[in-house]
């Protein structure tokens, strides 16, 4: 069995949030040895719900369970001089640091990229923050909704006449994490290619903005500003109610408009008023009425099967419970069972994508708080058992 594709890469994960933890977890999933460093009281992630069986115990945060998968864990108090010295020792033994502190915070502790790079010239440091490290707003505070607002996506989500609508969940945080991991992998290869160490400055707002291709380019191409969907007449390509749920239908793929009309079992849709994109936009109110009426007699999984046969672009709105039991994800071994020391055996979403030679490997459950302190500080850095106890007493770890 070959090691993971990132085998041999050593990472320190200083982050307390979703973005940084997800970034470092992806590196761990694909073979990097990742050490999660938390403050002695535990990272903020441990206080975030949902919790396993609704028990708000610090080892039962489900965010912590999932996002620190495959990492080892130790505590460190960066607010103490001793903790700072420990970090400087650890930094010399790794390739990557992932951090998501407010811009300037690490510098204020003497642990900014320049200081760390002096200790480790080929260090890649991946910083993920809402606004980025520099610029007039870099000291401003971010939040999910602020990233969606300033990343343009809200300006075109929701309906006209109502407030712009945000994504559900923590999409911006995950976006920041995935971009951080991608940029880190690129820079790690760049090092093979002679680029040297890098400070990667990821801005979460800019990640959200990067998804806005048609929206951004509309202005410099034709002076236009995109809008949210119309309050009526634009249900097609959005979730539409059927007899037992919600479905989304789209033109394209291998199917003709006639195929779609057959799926709806409604010949009236063959009318020239609905024959192309612009006609459908102009006559959307009528078309939606006909479609919603037709769908009210049809079931989502029947439609799903028929659409697949006719090669129609079709989706149904699945709920988290349905996705947790999805046979397609099962076939791709997306979920893995992890045995966590406090939670026990539990199924977790694991595999972002499948590699042929270096497949995903589940190596550790999320560490309990300070689980690997002994291994890191005594076995790794060579502190005596007495000094190790002293570090704890000094509140440095």
């Amino acid at each position, binding site marked *: 069995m070959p090691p993971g594709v990132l085998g041999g890469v050593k990472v320190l994960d200083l982050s307390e949030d979703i973005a940084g933890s997800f970034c470092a977890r992806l590196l761990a999933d694909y073979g990097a040895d990742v050490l999660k460093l938390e403050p002695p009281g535990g990272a903020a992630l441990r206080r975030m719900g949902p919790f396993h069986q609704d028990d708000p115990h610090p080892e039962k945060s489900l965010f912590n369970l999932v996002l620190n998968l495959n990492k080892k864990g130790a505590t460190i108090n960066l607010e103490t001089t001793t903790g700072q010295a420990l970090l400087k020792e650890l930094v010399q033994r790794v390739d990557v640091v992932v951090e998501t502190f407010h811009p300037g915070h690490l510098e204020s502790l003497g642990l900014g990229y320049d200081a760390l790079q002096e200790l480790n010239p080929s260090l890649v440091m991946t910083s993920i923050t809402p606004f980025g490290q520099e610029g007039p707003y870099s000291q401003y505070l971010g939040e999910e909704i602020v990233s969606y607002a300033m990343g343009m996506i809200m300006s075109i989500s929701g309906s006209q006449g109502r407030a712009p609508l945000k*994504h559900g969940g923590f999409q911006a945080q995950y976006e920041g994490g995935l971009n951080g991991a991608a940029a880190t992998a*690129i820079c790690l290869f760049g090092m093979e290619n002679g680029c040297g160490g890098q400070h990667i400055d990821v801005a979460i707002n800019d990640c959200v903005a990067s998804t806005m291709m048609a929206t*951004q380019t509309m202005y410099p191409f034709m002076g236009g500003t995109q809008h949210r969907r119309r309050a009526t007449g634009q249900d097609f390509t959005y*979730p539409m109610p059927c007899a037992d749920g919600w479905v*989304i239908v789209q033109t394209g793929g291998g199917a003709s408009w006639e195929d779609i009309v057959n799926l709806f079992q409604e010949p009236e849709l063959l009318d020239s008023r609905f024959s192309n994109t612009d006609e459908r936009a102009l006559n959307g109110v009528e078309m939606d009425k006909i479609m919603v009426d037709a769908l009210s007699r049809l079931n989502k999984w029947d439609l799903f099967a028929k659409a697949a046969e006719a090669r129609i672009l079709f989706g149904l709105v699945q709920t988290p419970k349905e996705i947790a039991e999805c046979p397609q994800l099962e076939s791709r071994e997306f979920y893995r069972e992890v045995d966590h020391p406090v939670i026990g055996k539990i199924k*977790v979403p694991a595999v972002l994508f499948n590699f042929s030679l270096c497949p995903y490997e589940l190596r550790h459950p999320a560490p309990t708080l300070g689980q690997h302190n002994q291994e890191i500080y005594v076995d790794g850095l060579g502190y005596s058992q007495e000094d190790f106890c002293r570090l704890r007493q000094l509140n440095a770890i």
Partner: protein
Amino acid sequence: MPQLPMEGIRVLDSTYVFALPYTGALLSDFGAEVIKIEGPAHPDTTRNSGLAGSYPEHDLGDDPWNRPSTYNLLHRGKQSLTLDMTDPRGRDLFRDMVRVSDVVMENFTPRVMRAWELDYPNLRKIKPDIIMISNTGFGHGGGPYSNNPAQATTLEGMHGHCWVTGYDGDGPNRVGASFVDFLSTWTALFAIGSALRYRSRTGQGQWADIAMYQAGVMFMSDYLMDAISNGRDGERIGNRHPYRAPQGCYPAQGDNEWIALSVGTDEQWQSLCKVLGREDLAQNARYADLLSRQRNHDELDKVIETWSAERDKYDMMHQLQGVGIPAGPVLTGKDVHFDPQYKSRGFLERVEYPEERGLGSRIFMGRPYKFSNTPLRIRGPAPTFGQDNERLLKELLGIKDDVYQGLVQDSITAEIPLAGNPVPRIPQERMVELGLMAAWDPEYRERLGLS
């Protein structure tokens, strides 16, 4: 100055629509040589469909397939080669290209590359250390949905995002852009960077099988765990937050102008009351802590709206952020071009086109990150259809002129697409009237200083 991270890497980008073409664009920014491959009768969807975005000055021009905004964003810095993969000669040329490349990307439904004998086991025989990236809706393999056609629009329902996105009390919704595409864009970058490093260490290539559905599901991890552990099935809470209040998107001064803000701590709540000029509320037990503010959120929304509707969205951001409250204006596709933070990060880049393209200069998004040691730039405009056919086939593959002329003759390669008609344009004013555009600014060229 060190070289760029991907310098010396050649990528065959045989991909369509949004997800992996965008990966190719970013790889070009990183210094790779990216060759976009399309069929003469199978031009990219972004060249002529509803996915094309906008046309320069809303004008289809003489070569509409080279002009759309989305095509030009997604293919910046690439070369263009057209090959008819449905013909054995086209596939042979593709194989010859693979022999001299490092990475191959494709996003056909799983059966296509298999039928052409261009799937990973076959490409590996030609080039043992090739790195291949496949992106499909549901992934390769024997799964029940593996052969279903899919695009981000329909996948957004499948991967659960629609279920948790929507106004409180309303049905499931979709966000305005094809969200899951970009998750594959970035996943592919991660896979390529990792696999290239592995290859440089071990000499071995590999195949990444990316499924957009699976990537989308990954971004729902917290909801999935709540379902698995607690049997909870997610819910729609509009613009609110599970453990912050008040949070929302409120009207600002002007037409369709908005501000988003989010209060998490009691201290932020006290500051908000001061900003609102409503110190009376700061003392009110109905809003004293997070739980009570969540219970009485509707009342707080009204108070905030009354204040926000009269004020400029940027002024409100500065005022709220000045007292430590996360807030930001809803920026439109126009606004970002004038935003000081995006400007200072150099997020938007100007690309100059050669005279004959008739596009002048245009502005495109760069990347959401900066590298300290190797500053990145968009390296050039998107190519015209088949622009590099002759040079690549002759110089890279050593094809003789008479053979090349035969390929042109038989439409194995072409410089004008043999299929695909642009959708006719609706006049700009009419688009605004119909709600297909929020606004139209005829002065955009002057405002942006476009040549």
